[in-house]
């Protein structure tokens, strides 16, 4: 494992850059645990102060130190992204592998369910749900809902991969080695499926963070929780740009950009590394 990281660090410029960018993000997240300010409290410091040594990102119109407030925001946004990704990956892999290998009515049923989820218009449903669940639309619930909506596309992708893997000779060799269906799926097929899963995970993380931003900007999520989205909501609410409080918009925007870019570079470099075709080149095929 360490050797993998060492190789990536040494030879892949993208990975190095990703590590640099994401370190910044991680540091911010870690700092949030030592924040001198409570993000739920307002008017703790003078409002609308531009960036200075005392307040690196300035203060908001609500009297909060922006830097420390954003440490919570980044932490929450990333938390949302990761939880969503985990939930949807797990579901999509289970569904895709099962549908692909078993075929028959299991496949048809699972794909029918999956297709229904694909065609459902997500944003209107989310808006509806947030009205209904106004009080309990916290971050975790949002992550669960997004996770439940985010698996269907990839399930079909994984299923196609499994369909083709099923026909290959080595699957038959495994059958004649007495291997059970479960272990064939895990040992023979999953390694080929993982790169797809990995590649789409990034997509999923970014998509869910983006979804949250959309909801928050519209004022539909729990606005007391600091996230990158709620930052923009509150900034908008107080007319930050018009009032000249440019740092309130810029800081979250820049941090979001760094987060997205860092994650993208990280996933691309790792994905190329674990892709079977690159691995084969590495091993010396």
């Amino acid at each position, binding site marked *: 494992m360490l050797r993998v990281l060492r*190789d*990536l660090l*040494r*030879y*892949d410029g993208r990975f190095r850059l990703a590590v640099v960018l994401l370190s910044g993000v991680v540091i911010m997240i870690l700092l949030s645990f030592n924040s001198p300010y409570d993000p739920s409290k307002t008017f703790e410091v003078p409002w609308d102060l531009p960036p200075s040594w005392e307040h690196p990102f300035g203060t908001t119109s609500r009297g909060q130190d922006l830097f420390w407030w954003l440490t919570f925001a980044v932490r929450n946004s990333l938390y949302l992204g990761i939880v969503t990704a985990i939930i949807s990956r797990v579901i999509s892999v289970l569904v895709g592998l099962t549908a692909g290998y078993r075929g028959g009515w299991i496949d048809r049923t699972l794909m029918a369910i999956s297709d229904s989820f694909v065609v459902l218009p997500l944003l209107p449903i989310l808006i509806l749900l947030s009205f209904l669940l106004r009080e309990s639309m916290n971050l975790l619930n949002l992550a669960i809902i997004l996770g439940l909506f985010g698996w269907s596309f990839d399930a079909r992708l994984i299923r196609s991969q499994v369909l083709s893997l099923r026909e290959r000779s080595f699957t038959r060799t495994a059958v004649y080695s007495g291997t059970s269906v479960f272990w064939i799926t895990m040992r023979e097929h999953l390694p080929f499926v993982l790169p797809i899963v990995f590649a789409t995970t990034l997509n999923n993380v970014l998509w869910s963070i983006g979804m949250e931003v959309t909801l928050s900007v519209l004022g539909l999520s729990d606005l007391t929780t600091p996230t990158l989205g709620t930052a923009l909501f509150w900034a908008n609410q107080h007319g930050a740009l018009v009032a000249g409080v440019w740092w309130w918009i810029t800081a979250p925007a820049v941090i979001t950009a760094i987060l997205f870019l860092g994650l993208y570079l990280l996933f691309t470099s790792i994905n190329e*590394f674990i892709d079977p075709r*690159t691995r084969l*080149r*590495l091993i*010396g095929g």
Partner: protein
Amino acid sequence: MTLLSVQNLHAYYKTEAYGISRTVRAVDGVSFDLFPNEIYGVAGESSCGKTTLIKVISGSIRPPLKAIEGSVNYDFGDYQADMLKISQDELRKNIRWKRISYVMQGSMSVLNPVRKVIKTFQDIVDTHERITDKKEFLEKTRAHINRLGLPTDVLNAYPHQLSGGMRQRVAIALATVFQPALIIADEPTTALDVVVQRGVLHMIKDIQARSKNTVLLVTHDMAVHANVADRVMIMYAGRIVEEAPTENIFNTPLHPYTQHLINSLPMIGEKSTKVSLKGSPPNLADPPAGCRFHPRCPYVMDECRTVVPELVTVKERHRVACHLVKEASL
């Protein structure tokens, strides 16, 4: 007149990923000539370098493949070309399909699966000579197809409607539309049934006999060479080990590898035990020193392990790279 002269060609693949760099010495010091009006066979197994050799002589030199040393020069009479220096543009305009054409294993790469065969003909002819009179073009194409013994209705078919053998023959028809001076056939019949193979090879022979051009036939199947080629060249691990007219190769093979290739083939009517060579073809990224065949050679001597045998002419048009033969002729 020499059609093609390859001198001391070294072509390697250089790859680098995650700090691991590998150089595969696919063609390592190959020199041979091609003359007009002959079928020249290249025999060798997987990873002997023959595919790389073909890439270089047909001008498909792209990274990670690089020609490190040597020369590849064509003389078409009215036109000369240096394959290592020629531009892609020049290749497209004056060489491909017109002077050198290619027939490969599995015609998939040349026949467009979503277009009728006649359209593929049109595409290829059009790129080289603008078709002004469509009727004339159709007439000429039909005549060409018929002359090669194919029914005209293949022109209106899609590739998947034809059998493998028929597709291959259509690919050959495509390759000969401009009557090129050199046809490179790379394992053209390997995936085909034995009866179909016979038909396809007959077709190649007929074409060569009629237009008196040169065919470079690459296949690992020695029996095919025996029945089709005029001269045969045996490659092993990136080098030529023997080259001679077909009768000589089969009647008096000099190199132990050639001898093995011929003797190990079972024939109907013979039940004597055939033996396999020990070991396996070497890894071209890390080939053995000296004669590359020495780890598997039943007659290996000390010299073979360290000194590379040179390819020398021992008889009329018969070249061998083997220390054994050098010793014998001294």
